[in-house]
């Protein structure tokens, strides 16, 4: 049964990792514009943008 002492923390840590990633994605605003994200798939990202100095 000693394997449990190893496996349970591993399982919990992996779960916590997923949770942390999800919480991070919420915090960074990835769930703020779901419709926009769906539509931006259709948009060419690599279209040449007019470069301009940001200073």
């Amino acid at each position, binding site marked *: *049964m000693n394997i449990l002492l190893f496996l349970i923390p591993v*399982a919990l840590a992996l779960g916590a990792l997923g949770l942390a990633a*999800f919480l991070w994605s919420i915090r960074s605003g990835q769930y703020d*514009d779901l*419709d926009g994200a769906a*539509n931006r798939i259709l*948009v060419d990202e690599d279209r040449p943008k007019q470069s301009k100095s*940001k200073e």
Partner: protein
Amino acid sequence: MNCCAIGNVMDAGTLFQGDLAPWIFTQQNGQREIDLIIPGLSSAESITTIEEAIESLPHVLSARINFTGRRLLVTWTDADFNPNSIAKTLSELGFTSRPFDPSGSGFKADDAQSRMLLRAVAVSGFAAANIMLLSVSVWSGAEGTTRDLFHWISAVIALPTVAYAGRPFFRSAARALSSGQFNMDVPISLAVCLAAMMSLYETSTHGKVAYFDASVTLLFFLLTGRYLDHLMRARARSAVSQLLSLAASSAMIVDEAGVPRLISATAIQPEMKMLVATGERFAADGVVASGVSEIDRSLVTGESNPESVTCGSVVHAGMMNLTGPLTVEVTAAGQDTFLAEIVRLMTSAEQSRSRFVQIADRLARIYSPAVHILAGLTLVGWLFWTGGDWHASLMTAIAVLIITCPCALGLAVPAVQTVASGVLFRNGVMIKDGAALEKLSAIDTVIFDKTGTLTRGNLRLVNAAALSPAALALAAGLAQISRHPLSKAICEAARLQGITPLVIEKSEEVPGCGLLGHDQGEQVKLGSRFWCGMPENETQGLPEFVLVKGSRAPTLFTFEDELRDDAGAVIAALKAIGTHVEILSGDRPAAVQRTAERLGIELWQAGVTPQAKLANVHALKDAGRKVLMVGDGLNDAPALAAGFTSMAPSSASDVGRNAADTIFMGESLMPVLVARNVAIATHQISIQNFTLAVGYNALAVPLAMLGFASPLIAAIAMSTSSIIVIANSLRLAFQFRQRTALAKSQVQGLTHLEQRAA
């Protein structure tokens, strides 16, 4: 034309002209940002078009569109940058925009709440998955210290989770109890807390069963339902609030010294002199002091024909000045305007509207007391039967509470309403809340306004086919310079027939009369019968223009307010399903009768005042009808507020959109029918979901009361019933998959991909 500085730039309404300073937010690092709402944003291409156009403006750091909220956030650092140029660029791209304050309109709070719920869903989901893993090990035979260890780990995960993720329910339950009421959250909070505490006690005494998994899974499913519900309301709210104007209108006032200056509409006082350029809407009621023009009253009274005004004519706030600049002496402003009267009527109509109780709340009123009584009876029964064994009795009573917890019930309505609002959104219908959806399913009478609702609200040349191309080309050449609706209709007709307008020399607009110009040395006139020297003809009642070239015989152009393309089909479909259809219009009888006959509507009234519209709706309501009012104008607003439920096109007046429960976009009338059909399907599926959820309880409760509800049974029953309810709700999306707009959006997506491939 010294007074037309604003009006000449653009049609009033397309461009926000006031000072944007109140909406600019400065961050600590000196960056400035402004939020703008772009109601017309509808396709993926426009996202990049707008972002690129705005980012290419000098000084702008970034422009980011939030497509869900139809919002644009622009940031810049330079204090000299004039944010009005953003609105200008947008209007050049064909988009209207309005400044918007995210914190003032409750968006910040809304977003914060949405994130909080999503975090709670994530935490409870994580906890539920891990505890379930441990519980499965216990159920499959973990014994002794291993079981105790698993229970303790579960407790360590579950207790903080309950404390964190349960807050929305605890708060709501506390609110309900403190006002002496029951809601669904009372049994939920009780079950979750009791289950956690009892399990903790069991764990500390090396007991065999612990309900940690039940209490956390319960929270997870309920929070999912709560989040879905929130998502639907947030989507509806943002869609609706984008359409509500910020009352940003301003007016050009001439002071005693004769100097014109721009003031906010709220600062207008009676007896001020107001200059109104062509294409502007009047900011206040008044009397024309000088100038001749024609005004468009369609949004205010429903009258579709432009009317000539001259010195002494009365004008109301909201009407649009069409052909010549006017000076208006303000007679009433603020509280004394026609608009204020409409708002008063609306407010009283809303108060008289009976409070509608949503189906979930109705059920909660019966359900929660029933659950508590059952749990109480179980406790008493077990005490009596076991001769005072508190431990066993309490355990069974808590098991009853957990089993009956309205998990599937909490999902039943939000799940289906979220799916429905998504389906409707794709069909161009924005619904303000779930109650509006439930009300729509019950309607049996539809009252339509005519101008702008059944019709598009713009005029079309009816006798284009009978006219010679030469006459049309000549008329179009003259009409080009004018913004009069009839002139626009002539240009449109010429464009449709592929006729190039003639170049007319020295063309000018004679306010209140028509257009004047020269072609091949001869004078050309396009305008009213009287001005062109033709006898008046009152019988027909349709708007007309007469074209006269030199001394030749005049040509008559007849116009009509164009019906929405599918109005006939929608009315026929509504009648086919037994709905009672009526027209209440403020327009003249001849015009209303024509529309009614073409659409096959027997019941119509013309020349109806806002008060009379309201009275009509009330009368139908008293007769037991469930009225859906569809209208767009200021004059419809009180009736919209009084109807059982109401819809307005997105082109409606601000007040009209505000009053309506549901708003539909686009040129088609089909959304009215689609909304009703989706609402009925939603209602049916909600009922099915409730039946499923209650049916599951009917099976599980006797088991629990007899003491057979092990944690395993509770977990299985709860999960399956929730999943069944969600799956059943998703049927709605499939049911409406083949319908109109979804197919359209797919076509759009495909063309876009094809363009990329090419």
